[in-house]
């Protein structure tokens, strides 16, 4: 049985990082949240701009994402920054307490001056940082790993090199009893019949077709047609001709394992194996949803060199062609372009990704972590009220 060294949390989940974070509940607290993080080196700010004046569907989705992020297994302790009598802060606090996760809230209120709030936040975080240093890694089974599968800035090589290599990795980790989560519903449009027919049963296949249809419907309601925007001019210059071609390349990340389950944005897989999460094609929001759903690591293929990272999960960047790796090695970890010019096979790169996932799980930093690429954005379904 393959293993890695992770952090075992009180609720039984396993983390591959031990971050102490500070997170805001609503957009207007962004600056205050960053200020608290700046006062406490070592603490990661997780900042978003939503949280209020949202339609119910967005309110639910935002809360689910914030709870999933604040309570993530890669997080050792969480400071929540909220407003007075803040229902979101109270909800996050309640859920994290129940999980046994160290959590504290500081809230803007009429009885506390801003410097006092900053001081309270900083003191709590300093203690949390000290405590986090005492936590030690222990041997964990690879079946505990959930790996998100993502792409951004596709080119004609994505479907030939990096994506099928990620697919080979996905098949390997599922074979070992772990979980892989493919995302980006929009990127499956035109190739949805392949994933649907590869579902474990007709019901899961139907669920998958449903989320694709719902997404397309929402796009049409805005008066847009996904086909007029995809492939993008950049995709076309790179040699991608149709939406179908782009999507066929995109779903290669899922490998050949049957699709076990379809989950909502920021939802947690209830089964081990190959899973699909309903997310937009916008990579920052998609990675954010994968992480909030419990993925401890995200694999990310890129042809044009998207630098997207995450504040809480290591993102392993896989370049699709030799050129992008050569010129952007600062934020790319693996060169799948070796399939084009160095006679490497898809399986070779799949194994390289597998080994990388283990070393990164053990604590090795990814390029995006070294560069402090910590993008965070929650998928919005409707407009603000």
């Amino acid at each position, binding site marked *: 049985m393959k293993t890695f060294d992770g952090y075992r949390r009180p609720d039984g989940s396993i983390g591959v990082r031990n971050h102490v974070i500070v997170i805001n509940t609503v957009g207007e607290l962004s600056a205050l949240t960053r200020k608290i993080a700046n006062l406490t080196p070592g603490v990661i700010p997780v900042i978003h701009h939503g949280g209020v004046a949202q339609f119910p569907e967005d309110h639910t989705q935002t809360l689910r994402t914030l709870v999933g992020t604040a309570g993530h297994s890669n997080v050792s302790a969480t400071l929540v920054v909220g407003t007075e009598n803040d229902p979101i802060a109270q909800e996050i606090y309640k859920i994290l307490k129940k999980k046994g996760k160290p959590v504290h809230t500081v809230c803007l209120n009429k009885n506390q001056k801003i410097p006092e709030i900053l001081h309270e936040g900083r003191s709590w975080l300093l203690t949390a940082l000290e405590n986090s240093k005492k936590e030690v890694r222990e041997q964990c089974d690879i079946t505990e790993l959930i790996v998100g599968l993502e792409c951004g800035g596709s080119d004609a090589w994505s479907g030939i090199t990096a994506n099928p290599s990620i697919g080979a990795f996905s098949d390997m980790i599922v074979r070992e009893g772990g979980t892989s989560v493919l995302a980006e519903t929009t990127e499956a449009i035109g190739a949805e019949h392949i994933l649907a027919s590869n579902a474990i049963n007709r019901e899961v296949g139907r669920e998958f077709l449903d989320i694709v249809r719902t997404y397309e419907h929402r796009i049409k309601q805005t008066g847009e047609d996904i086909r007029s925007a995809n492939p993008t001019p950049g995709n076309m210059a790179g040699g991608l*001709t149709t939406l179908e071609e782009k999507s066929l390349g995109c779903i290669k990340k899922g490998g050949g394992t049957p699709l076990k389950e379809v989950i909502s944005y920021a939802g947690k897989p209830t089964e081990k194996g190959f899973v699909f999460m309903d997310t937009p094609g916008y990579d920052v929001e998609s990675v954010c949803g994968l992480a909030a759903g419990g993925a401890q690591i995200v694999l990310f293929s890129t042809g044009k060199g998207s630098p997207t990272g995450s504040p809480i999960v290591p993102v392993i960047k896989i370049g699709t062609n030799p050129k992008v790796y050569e010129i952007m090695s600062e934020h790319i970890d693996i060169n799948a372009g070796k399939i084009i010019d160095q006679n490497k096979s898809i399986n070779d790169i799949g194994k390289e990704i597998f080994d990388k996932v283990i070393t990164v799980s053990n604590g090795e930093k990814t390029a995006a972590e070294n560069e402090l690429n910590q993008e965070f954005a929650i998928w919005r379904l409707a407009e603000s009220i």
Partner: protein
Amino acid sequence: MEVSYNALKLHPKDNVAVALKRISEGEIVLISNFESNLVALEEIPYGHKISLHVINENEEIKKYGECMGKATNEILVASHVHVHNVRGLNENERLEIINHVMEA
């Protein structure tokens, strides 16, 4: 001697190959996973597609062994296959594929 391919056929069912480097008009195309060599009818940019056979108007373009669109006119062998001679599927064609798969 190791052959230096400049194009790659990805799946046995495919009728196009992908250029592994820029191929000039008149250049010999050595295709990995394909039995014969071709002479490029026109320039094929890096990462773009080249036809392996004559493709009739409205015939499916196959890449990864799957349908990625249909020819909008007859495409001669060894031609550049791209937006000028290929279209994506329309709604009815798509539904047909989905229904076919889900009924199977």
